[in-house]
């Protein structure tokens, strides 16, 4: 497995991956986080953050088979994956940045709708009186 990226490199790769996926409007991006336990130290563990496209951006094997070649499965070489380790002290700064990157990159999601927001505010008020 490729070595972990620095936090900075991780963000640039993630920005790239998210924008590519959003542009294509197809495929997925998987992000995972888990504590990195070494079993020795009792201090709060670092967090391992991984990102992958799950090989969902690989070409469709059905469309490829037209030109005679039959690809049995998507080659795992095309899979994009990278990871980084976040130290406990950097967690807050990392996640602030992470949130920004995700928000900027996930353009395929629904934009904030002003008119709906107004309706929601009304609903909230009604709810408050009920409670």
């Amino acid at each position: 497995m490729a070595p972990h990226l620095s936090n900075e490199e991780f963000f640039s790769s993630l920005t790239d991956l998210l924008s590519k996926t959003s542009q294509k409007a197809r495929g997925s991006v998987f992000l995972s986080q888990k504590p990195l336990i070494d079993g020795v130290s009792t201090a709060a563990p670092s967090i391992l953050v991984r990102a992958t496209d799950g090989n969902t951006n690989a070409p469709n094997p059905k469309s490829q088979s037209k030109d005679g070649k039959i690809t049995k499965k998507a080659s795992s070489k095309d899979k994009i994956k990278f990871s980084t380790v976040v130290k406990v002290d950097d967690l807050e700064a990392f996640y602030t940045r992470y949130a920004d990157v995700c928000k900027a990159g996930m353009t395929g999601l629904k934009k904030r709708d002003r008119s709906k927001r107004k309706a929601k505010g009304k609903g909230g008020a009604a709810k408050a009186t009920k409670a």
Partner: protein
Amino acid sequence: MPYLPTSQAFLEQSAQLLEAYPDTTRITTKYHFPTETPGARAKRSKSQAKKAASTTSETTTTQTTSAPVASLTLKTYNPTTGIVLQYQTNKIAEVSRLITGLGKLASGADVASLGLSGAGGGDVEMVDAPAVVEVVPASAPAANANAGQGGKGKKKGGKGKR
């Protein structure tokens, strides 16, 4: 495994799960576009074109690309117990709140601190749902209200498609 009705509920329950099994629990975030059949794609682009025609002011601001709406699924999974908690959204407005929530979970925040931050940082419906454990009946109607709103959103989408 259940999809939780609100992001707040998801974060709280995840915090509890992490508290119970800090070593083995992991959180995954999936940003994904739906797979579409060609028929569904044609239908959607048609309805979008119709919408664009009716609201002329919006055509200038929004791109007229026929991209499907992506969605974001958060999943907290503990392999040893097999517990999965999920939350799904398609609103960009929720993303940064969710991710900062994940950050708090990663740094080992407990339920109480999450609840407080939710009340302070939540800009929409979380305001009157303080996550104190004793106020369970108060938070229950809040969850219901949210579910209702989700239903409304779905209905609107249905109309647009026709």
